[in-house]
Structures are given as C-alpha cells and as structure tokens.
C-alpha cells in the first residue's frame, strides 16, 4: 500500500502531535510530566543531567532538554502541553517560549499579539513561506 502525502505537512511552522510523534516523544513527554511534582522539580534542578538519566530518552532528546531548544524538542516528539511543565519549572510563560520558537523577542512577539496576532495571510502553506524570500 502506498501512503498518501500528509496534508498537515504542508502547514508551515507547525508540527502535528500525531501517532508517530507520540511514540517518538513518549519518554521525553513523560519526563516533563514528572515535573508536576515538587520533589521531582527539586531533584531535576539540583542535577538536570542526572535526573534525565532516569528516563529512557534518546541522547538527542536529553541534549535538547538541557539546552532548552524548544523547536528541536518539538521535532523530537515533544508536545507543547508537556513541554510547558519544563518551562514552568524554569518560571517561564507560554508567551516567552512562543516568542523564542518564532525567532522573535518576547517584546516584539507580545506587540504582535496586541496588534491582532500573526495573520493567516501568507501563513497557510509552505509555498507561502518559500515565496516570501
């Protein structure tokens, strides 16, 4: 059976948390989930690398956690609501992390939102992004 191209792949700057990502990111996301408990947050903060060894994640996933590379974490199967446990442990907000993921400063990002957000015009298809030069 030949699989059809996934139409969601055409949406620029967007990763669908589908079955494949969920399998890939299971231990990464469950690590994030562990940070819901105060004791675990303390243990993680005390020695991040050692704490990460408790979870059977890939070396790349551990590296991306240590460096807080949010887009890379998403590409390695991280889901934003689980990653939120990690940036909340850091005392960071959704808006702070969203700004980083868009390559913007938090100030510029916040201004964009106050001005009505990112327009769907020019942001619907990967073709739109290729053409913007």
């Amino acid at each position, binding site marked *: 059976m030949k699989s059809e191209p996934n139409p969601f792949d055409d*949406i620029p700057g967007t990763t669908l948390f589908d079955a494949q990502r969920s399998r890939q990111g299971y231990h990464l996301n469950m690590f994030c*989930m562990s940070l819901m408990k105060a004791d675990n947050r303390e243990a993680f903060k005390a020695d991040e690398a050692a704490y990460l060894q408790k979870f059977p994640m890939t070396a790349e996933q551990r590296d991306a956690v240590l460096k807080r590379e949010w887009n890379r974490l998403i590409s390695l199967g991280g889901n934003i609501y*689980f990653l*939120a*446990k990690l940036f909340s442990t850091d005392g960071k907000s959704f808006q702070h992390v969203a700004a980083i993921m*868009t390559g913007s400063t938090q100030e510029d990002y916040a201004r964009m939102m106050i001005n009505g957000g990112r327009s*769907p015009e020019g942001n619907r298809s990967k073709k739109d992004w290729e053409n913007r030069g």
Partner: protein
Amino acid sequence: MAKLVAGVATSHVPAIGAAIDLGKTEEPYWKPLFQGYELSKKWIAEQKPDVIILVYNDHASAFSLELIPTFALGCAAEFPPADEGWGPRKVPVVKGHPELAWHIAQSVILDEFDLTIVNNMAVDHGLTVPLSLLFGQPSEWPCQVIPLAVNVVQYPPPTGNRCYNLGKAIRRAVDSFDPDLKVMIFGTGGMSHQLQGPRAGLINRAFDTAFLDNLTKDPRKLSQMPHIDYVREAGSEGIELVMWLIMRGALDEKVREVYRFYHVPASNTAVGHIILENEA
C-alpha cells in the same frame, strides 16, 4: 424533568485564570477582556443553573500519555483543582452531580457513544477558568458541574461531526432525567491560537467570526469541517473548537444568540465567548 436551557462557549486560557487569581483584572491589558464577561455574569446569576455540563480538555494534568480517553465523563461527587506545576489554583473544589452524570454515561453509551467513566479526576484550568469567568471568585461554586474531558492534545481529536452528535446524545440523556433540574452546557477552548513552532501567535479573526456565526445559524455545516481546516486556519491549538460543537449539539436546532464577545489577545490566544438559549 431536567431541562437543558442554554449553552455557553468560552475560551479557557490559563493566563486568564492567573490574572484573576493575582488580582490583575483591572490592569489595562486585562480590563477589556473581563469587561466582556460582565453581562454574562449578570445573565448567569439570574438564570441560576442547577448543573453545568462542562466540556473542556485536560492539558496533561489529569491525563498524561499513559491514558488518552477521547471522551471522559466525570461521575464523582467532587473534583479537586489540579496542580499544574505551580500549585493548584485557589478556587473552590468542583462539586459534581453523580446521579445525572451516571445517567448521562448510561444513556449515551447505550446510544453508542462509548465514553470513559471517571471517578477520580483533578480538573485543570480548562475547566476552572470558564467557571471563574462566569462566576467570579465565590467561596463555593453556585452550582454542580459535570466535567466532560475531550482529547484534543493527541492527534486525532474526535471529529466535529462526532462531537456534534455526542451533544445530541447528551441532550437525549438530559431530557430523560426525571428530577427537576435546570441544566446548562458549556463548550470551552479556542478560539484561533497556536502555541508551538515558528507559526506560533496565529490569530484568524475572519475564521473565528464565521465560526461564531455558524455556531448559531448553521452548526450542521460547521460539524462537517475537517481537522485540516481547523489547524491551517485557526492554528494547531484552534482545533479545540470541536468541543464547542458538543455544546451546540445539545441545544435545539434553532437557538437565540443572547450575547457574543471577541477579544484579541489573551497571551497567545483569541478569546471568544457566546451565549445561546433554547427558544422554548
């Protein structure tokens, strides 16, 4: 007999809860948003529902990747506010209505909607922020609440059509419940927003406006919209809007739009709110 009188839809942005809890509602950033709910607070105080069926999604609080129910109905007597990583919100414990909840579970499962029954569940901002928006900061919530958690985190969420039809099944269940109860249903989440990746911050006012229009006038058409349209047009988290269709499905075919409010932004999100009443 129990009577389903009205539906309410509202966004459930966590930052709104934080603004309420930290006393920031009068700040220039937040004031226009909270003003948009003043009329709704008066309306619901006059309406005095006995029970609210509250459709929302859990954000990796009660459910992780270990267990991902598509539809989970809270049948317990109470539901504590969840600790989402910085301590639970200081809001009242949510009191359930086990008798009606179990009746709904029994009725819709025999109606071929195989939902999950939950007796132990903490409820996160998805459920408590809508209550705060409509009821403010009381020492006890003024009515009982039946949580209905919908998976919209792991793709695929249920289709709009499935949600709409589940709403209809819930209505049949409420209509067949003997005790005299005034019941409302809330659909929460949305509107357009994207929290992840280089396209984060997407807001689509035209999409949101059309969604609100059709929610009142042509929900059947809305129920046919495929997931790809939600994600492309309303952002990866805009897909939460399928939950509003459960609310709409539970109402009459023809409804009266009592109130509508739309505001950008609350943090990363377009806030939408609508009140629909059954005509009878």
